[in-house]
């Protein structure tokens, strides 16, 4: 019997995320519920990595759970002054790359090769001494190197392989064994998951393995790569999940200044993270506060399904 990897977010984060871990938290398909659990368990000194580390990283920085980031885009997290202050004072160390660079670094990690060449960064100040040895970072000469192709002599930039200790993601569905299925564009997730030592995925639905195996093209990593599957409906809320729910603009509108005003931030975190034990309580609280109609309003409707059919058919009894 294959191992059943279903567990609670509390168990998964406790068991598979350690202080100091290099942690992938998605580009899209954002694992918001899992990130809230990290805050509840007060993990320390995480390094957040990903092509673009989205806004859900900001609370991890501000609460001190994460103290480093290596990414192409700090994006939403620097929309407010709380995070830029952490960068100014050295409490949040950062290494700036680009989306392609991070994806390539995950690819190298996944392939088990030590580095990978790219043409990105040529002609930019990223290659300057000033950027490589900047006081906010820690990689210094290990960040990247300009080199020549040994065959053609062309200029290239060499990027080191990146292997996250743990990758977190929200996905549509999985079976109990941990075969993860995702649809919609994949961002950098596939290579980050392959490169990671441990993978934790929250899913909207757990389905029988027969369902997964009837459409195997949709699986992005096989079960042996996956440590834990968490059945967590609305696990990406307030961010979208293709086919399930859209971005919750109403909820977001109530969260202005969250990353500029420490009091507003604390109030939000007390209410939506510390004030609930898990995502189920979060959803109950949401419905208490805003009514079930607010949740219904972001649910995907009507379903948009493929037209036509595909077949994985073959000839079971070939004759010679």
């Amino acid at each position, binding site marked *: 019997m294959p191992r059943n990897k279903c567990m609670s977010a509390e168990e998964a984060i406790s068991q598979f995320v350690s202080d100091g871990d290099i942690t992938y938290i998605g580009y899209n398909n954002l694992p918001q519920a899992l990130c809230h659990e990290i805050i509840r368990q007060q993990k320390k000194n995480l390094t957040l990595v990903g092509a673009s580390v989205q806004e859900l990283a900001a609370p991890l920085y501000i609460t001190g759970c994460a103290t480093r980031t290596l990414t192409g885009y700090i*994006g939403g997290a620097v929309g407010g002054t709380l995070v830029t202050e952490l960068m100014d004072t050295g409490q949040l160390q950062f290494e700036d790359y680009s989306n392609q660079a991070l994806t390539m670094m995950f690819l190298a990690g996944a392939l088990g090769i030590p580095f990978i060449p790219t043409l990105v960064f040529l002609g930019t100040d990223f290659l300057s001494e000033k950027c490589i040895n900047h006081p906010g970072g820690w990689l210094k000469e290990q960040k990247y190197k300009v080199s020549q192709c040994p065959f053609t002599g062309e200029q290239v930039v060499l990027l080191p392989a990146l292997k996250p200790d743990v990758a977190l993601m929200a996905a549509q569905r999985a079976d109990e064994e941990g075969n993860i299925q995702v649809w919609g564009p994949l961002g950098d997730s596939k290579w980050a998951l392959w490169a990671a030592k441990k993978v934790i995925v929250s899913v909207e639905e757990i389905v029988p393995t027969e369902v997964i195996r009837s459409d195997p093209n949709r699986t992005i990593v096989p079960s042996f790569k996956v440590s834990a599957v968490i059945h967590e409906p609305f696990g990406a809320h307030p961010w979208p999940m293709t086919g399930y729910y859209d971005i919750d603009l109403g909820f977001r509108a109530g969260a202005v200044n969250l990353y500029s005003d420490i009091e507003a931030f604390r109030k939000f975190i007390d209410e939506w993270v510390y004030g609930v034990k898990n995502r189920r309580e979060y959803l109950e609280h949401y419905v208490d506060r805003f009514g079930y109609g607010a949740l219904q309003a972001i649910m995907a409707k009507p379903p948009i399904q493929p037209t036509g059919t595909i077949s994985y058919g073959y000839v079971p009894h070939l004759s010679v």
Partner: protein
Amino acid sequence: MVSKSYADDYTLAELMCIAAARELRDGENIFMGLGLPCLAAPIAKMLYVPNAQLFTEVGVFDWVPTDPTVMGRGPMHIFDLPLNVGSAMLGDMLDQLGAMMMGGHVDTAFLGGAQIDKFGNLNTICLGDYHHPTRRLGGVGGNTDAACLAKKVIIILPHERRRFVERVDFVTSPGYIDGPGSRRRHGLQPQGPNVVISTLGVLRFDTQDGDSGTCEMYLDATFPNVSAATVKEMTSWDLQVSNALKQVEPPSVEEVILLRSLDPLMFHLREGRY
């Protein structure tokens, strides 16, 4: 000549969007960056360049916008869910920024930026010194990737003196770097940015190929009610003005109606957004 009825209540963002949409060429592979490109590219596809193919870094290939009355809204950003419907392929970032972009298949990248200089170099990482910035920005995302690797680049940004500078504080995304031939010397394809749509008008670059000409940005057309003197005043270097300075044609009623059907909340299009 077909007579056109111009809209009289368009916003600045709508004018910029339409000016940008008119720059796209049919049959090209177009990479959409954050913000207005997510509206300008589908508008262009629906009205002017039906054979252009639209892409975003997250993995969207050849998105065909469906009827806005069915779609409800266009994409608000590069991984917004409406992009998942009507695409020819949903892949990942390696497909997109690797095979597509670095493989040399992107004709035009459509980007934003925070600061630009006379050679079209962009900065999206910080204002001021990188070590002690006056303002830290979000970073580059796919902006650097596209500026390094796309054959042509269209840039949209607000026209202010602190943004249109002699030299950007940090070259995150190379334009013509230090002038003619620079891109080639740095190992990049020679052609860089070709158009800038600002909040005051349309600017182009004095080069056909990245090697000839001065490679400097010049003012080609102003928006209605904007003078060349104003544009020069809002630019930190001595901006050259085309001898055949034009005025940007205002958006038509049809264009504005279609644009608003893609952004019914006026998320990007509202007055004061730029």
